[in-house]
């Protein structure tokens, strides 16, 4: 009898956990289609807990592992992040580059996700960023280096798991100068937890910079149905002298 009771409790717990049944595509996989944006912009400012400062609202850490919510930098690496913070003109996004993974998933701009049975595609409004994630089992590229990396997706139940390789090691994690370095790899997990909530987790492994892997979790919130991505020009309009390596350099994008 005791056993039956604990089984019942287990079943109730399980059903409470999976109470939400996601909408599905004809292939049976959950439909992530829509325009999304990070439910909290805190991660875009700083993935760690941070106090308010000029232009930056205060926010909690989005790091769920390690406990304590701090990036597990190797000795000397936090100093580099603090130095970046003093030189935000180095931010690759300020230089019109794509965000890199995982930062690309929580910018303060909307992004669009759709699936076609062979790919999960993510378009970001900012920097007109693109991720095409094949889910057909093809191998990862070899000797590849890029801002947004090379991604392969697979389904574990209703969770999309994405392996990311080929990151160029130049990406920042946030506007505060936290960063990843060469050889970083990322495993992402996407899961609908409610009709309008897509939970995003990314586990970053980067032994050149961190003493252990760490995981961030940022829920994405669905935007209203009439929201469209609009074009984001950056290089075309880049005339900000602070972003130029030398003040003598010509403003980029200006036609002579």
């Amino acid at each position, binding site marked *: 009898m005791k056993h039956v009771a604990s089984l019942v409790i287990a079943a109730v717990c399980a059903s409470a956990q999976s109470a939400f049944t996601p909408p599905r595509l004809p292939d049976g996989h959950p439909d992530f*289609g829509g325009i999304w944006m990070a439910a909290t912009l805190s991660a875009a400012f700083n993935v760690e807990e941070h106090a308010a400062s000029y232009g930056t609202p205060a926010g909690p850490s989005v790091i769920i592992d390690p406990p304590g919510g701090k990036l597990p930098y190797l000795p000397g690496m936090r100093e580099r992040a603090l130095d970046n913070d003093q030189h935000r003109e180095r931010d690759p996004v300020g*230089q*019109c*580059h*794509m965000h890199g993974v995982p930062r690309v998933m929580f910018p303060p701009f909307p992004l*669009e996700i*759709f699936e*076609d049975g062979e*790919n999960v*595609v993510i*378009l970001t409004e900012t920097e*007109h*960023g*693109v991720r*095409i994630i*094949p889910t057909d089992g*093809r*191998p990862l*590229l070899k000797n*590849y280096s*890029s*801002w*947004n990396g090379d991604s392969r997706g697979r389904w574990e139940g209703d969770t999309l798991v994405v392996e990311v390789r080929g990151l160029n090691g130049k990406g920042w994690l946030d506007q505060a100068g936290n960063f990843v370095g060469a050889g970083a790899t990322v495993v992402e997990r996407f899961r609908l937890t409610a009709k309008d909530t897509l939970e995003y987790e990314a586990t970053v492994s980067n032994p050149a910079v961190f003493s252990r892997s760490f995981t961030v979790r940022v829920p994405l919130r669905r935007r209203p149905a009439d929201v*469209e*991505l*609009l*074009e984001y*020009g950056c*290089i*075309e309009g*880049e005339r900000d002298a602070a972003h*130029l*390596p*030398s003040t003598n*350099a*010509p403003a*980029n*994008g200006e*036609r*002579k």
Partner: protein
Amino acid sequence: MIRPALVLLLVTAAAWAQAPSARDLRGIWQAKGNAYRNLEAEKGVIVDPANGKIPYRAEARSTADRNFQARATTDPLLVCFQPGVPRATLLPEPFQIFQQQDRVVIVYQHVHSYRVIFTDGRPHYDDGIEFYMGDSRGHWEGNTLVVDATNFKPENWLDAAGHFHSNKLHVIERYTRDAPNTMRYEATLEDPEVFQRPWTIRAELARHTEPNFQLIEHECDRDAQGAYRHPPQFLK
């Protein structure tokens, strides 16, 4: 007397046009030929007017000539502007077409430009915002995807030879998949500030069928002088 091979071709083409897959434009495509270099110099690109010349207004022809002389330094593409339409289609780089129920999405490898083309009848943006890639809405005419693109920025060029347009550019594109691995592309360009009349280009697109072929990231970076430049592997 019709030869058997031609009969077979006609039958195959007719069967293809009947197949539901004729409206399936998905895949990775790339323009054949060198239209991207100079629309007027490449034979058969401008199909209307019949003389193959862009019907510029007189003063606009002078601007195009000046652009041509200065093209080595002033082509916006050289400093990594998004390429515009129809130039994006003609570049010697692949692009990938995705289809959803209410939209067609085209991702160009070239500087990872993309276009989201709604096919659900919603109207254009009408509030005066201009875009390098324009604002595109599509509909189907038979097996042809017809895309109406407006709201263009005026700075872009149409090719590497300095042919140009204003922000009054209106492009009507027609995508017709005429066989499993080929697609006919047509674009009619109207721009009363620059052209005397609408004119039309045509290009053949080929589908990439190599196993596991995929787009790779084409992102510009700054050179020593601070100007955005394409990585060398993408220069043609």
